[in-house]
């Protein structure tokens, strides 16, 4: 959206533009791609949307590992549709980032080079088929808690992408929970698998909400811009309050001895989160980090000749890209 030099706003204009932007945010209206926006707003959004897109694409892998071995044809179809959805979600999000001047191939390069990150949750391996169910129930459940408020993001393309994604995530969470319910009605080994998976994924899913509020320096600005709607701790509490009764219906134990209902506040209290582990995993030391990135790199590099071939064909046949 760069304007020719002659049209570049003067200082006075810039103040007027800033005022218009502020008024749009204050009225809870959406900012659209061609609107003027502060550079910090744009950059923060690109970072946020890009890491979200990367998370969707990398998030295909932990469950994708079970696609070939899914234990029934129905489960295979469900899982394939889900993993395909995640590719679609990544694409919606890259599109939203591109409305801000980013470029998908470039964002992918930054992911592969480790300069942009994805959610640490996907650095944990999926050890049994119960993990597929638990990812749907807990990980997608946490994602929904994070994402639903983003349907009201002040940035229009992001908000619209999130609306569609949230609708589809609802299918993801339900298929996960239904798989777990079925497994809990199955053999003793199946029930043990479910409990084991819950034990491994519960704490990482709590970490998905990010560090405690007093340790999140940029949150205030993001709140003011309307691109963050609730604090990390608020969303985490909401998630725990939703998940505990669901665990009871399922018949599994959440691995937290400190978990208890506080009748006074109407919320569940929970134990302390191990933020050291979080930092380790987020800085690339998660069990599966190298493998996840290597597969993305291979998909890009091994197939580069395909992308080039289609471009060459388009050029030859006069359907070339601008």
């Amino acid at each position, binding site marked *: 959206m760069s304007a020719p030099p002659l049209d570049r706003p003067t200082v006075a204009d810039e103040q007027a533009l800033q005022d218009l932007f502020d008024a749009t945010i204050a009225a809870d209206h959406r900012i659209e791609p061609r609107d003027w926006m502060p550079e910090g707003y744009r950059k923060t959004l690109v970072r946020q949307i890009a890491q979200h897109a990367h998370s969707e694409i990398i998030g*295909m*892998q932990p469950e*994708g590992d079970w*696609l*070939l*071995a*899914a*234990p*029934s*044809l*129905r*489960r*295979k*179809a469900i899982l*394939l*549709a889900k*993993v*395909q959805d995640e*590719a679609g979600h*990544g*694409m919606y999000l*890259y599109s939203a980032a591109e409305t801000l001047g980013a470029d998908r191939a470039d964002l992918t390069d930054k992911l592969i080079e480790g300069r942009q990150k994805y959610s640490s949750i996907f650095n944990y391996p999926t050890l049994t*088929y119960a993990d597929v169910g638990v990812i749907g129930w807990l990980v997608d459940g946490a994602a*929904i*808690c994070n994402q*639903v*408020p983003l*349907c*009201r993001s002040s940035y229009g393309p992001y*908000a619209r992408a*999130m*609306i569609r994604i*949230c*609708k589809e995530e*609802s299918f993801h969470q339900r298929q996960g929970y239904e798989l777990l319910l*079925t*497994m809990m*009605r*199955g*053999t003793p*080994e*199946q029930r043990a698998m479910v409990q084991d998976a819950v034990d491994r994924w519960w704490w990482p899913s709590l970490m998905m909400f990010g560090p405690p509020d007093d340790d999140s320096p940029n949150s205030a600005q993001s709140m003011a811009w309307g691109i963050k709607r*609730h604090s990390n701790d608020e969303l985490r509490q*909401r998630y725990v309050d*939703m998940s505990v009764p669901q665990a009871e219906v399922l018949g599994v134990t959440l691995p937290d001895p400190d978990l208890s209902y506080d009748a006074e506040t109407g919320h569940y209290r929970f134990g302390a989160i191990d933020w050291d582990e979080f930092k380790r995993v987020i800085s690339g030391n998660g069990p599966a980090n190298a493998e996840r990135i290597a*597969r993305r790199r*291979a*998909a890009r590099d*091994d*197939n580069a*000749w*395909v*992308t*080039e*071939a*289609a*471009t*060459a*064909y388009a050029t*030859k046949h006069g359907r070339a890209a601008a």
Partner: protein
Amino acid sequence: MGHEETVYEALDHAHGGEGHWAFGTGFDDPLAGVDTTVPDGVDPADLGEYCLMLGDDALVLAQRLTQWITAAPELEEEVAIANVALDLLGQARLLLARAGSVGVLGRSREKATESIPDEDALAYFRDADEFRSTALVAAPNGDFAQTIVRLLVASTVRLAVFARLRESRDPVLAAIAAKGVNELTYHRDHAARWLLRLGDGTDESHRRAQAGADAIWRLLDDLFVPTDVERRLTEAGVAVDPAGTRDEVRSVLVQVLERATLRVPGWPAEAPPRGRLGQHGPELAELLGVLQGLARQHPAATW
């Protein structure tokens, strides 16, 4: 939390109050209302065997295509391949369920407990020698060019059969075919579009596409020779004689390859059916090992 009672309500707000969480469930069961009795004069064992041939081809090819997920060129192609695999998986489920419904379960029921539906007993608890798929679908993917050539050939062959099968005296097969024709047309066209671009793209893509065609063409040898089961069912007006589809298939493939500036490999000499009779190379056993491993570890489980 302010004005939002639950996180989901925010979605309703965001969607202008329409907030349809749940999409309509207006999913048409393609077999709903279809008469499932075996037509007069047809041996149910033959019918079931034929359903396995068509169902196994779809299942094995779906599994091969699924190997591309998280490894495909560009996200757009990832989504497209998943769509094709999902269609084929859907066809496999209907056909295996039909085989089971007429009592053709092979030795699968010796291993699968009662709680496992027929389609899964057949998919997960038959050994390779009981599979009726052809070598064409079992072959490893190779690179993207070879994958595309195989998809082009497999969907062209299957489309020719399904188009005729819509007239089958078995109403179930006719219904499955009617649904499948649209899907297979899309698969064939997707593969053809890609092959044009690979064949007439860069030097490298042309070379790879040609190598893919040369490798896949060899697998055409036993696709058009009917088994005894297919012969009997064709006479009964239930099945399609693959020999009758050969010229059409050949003409489609030659057209696509020529437009893709590829050399059409020599048509291989016809050989008697192998895969259709349960004779397979090691690649099918390997594929089934992955597909069936988990289900077989838990034969009493429900998923």
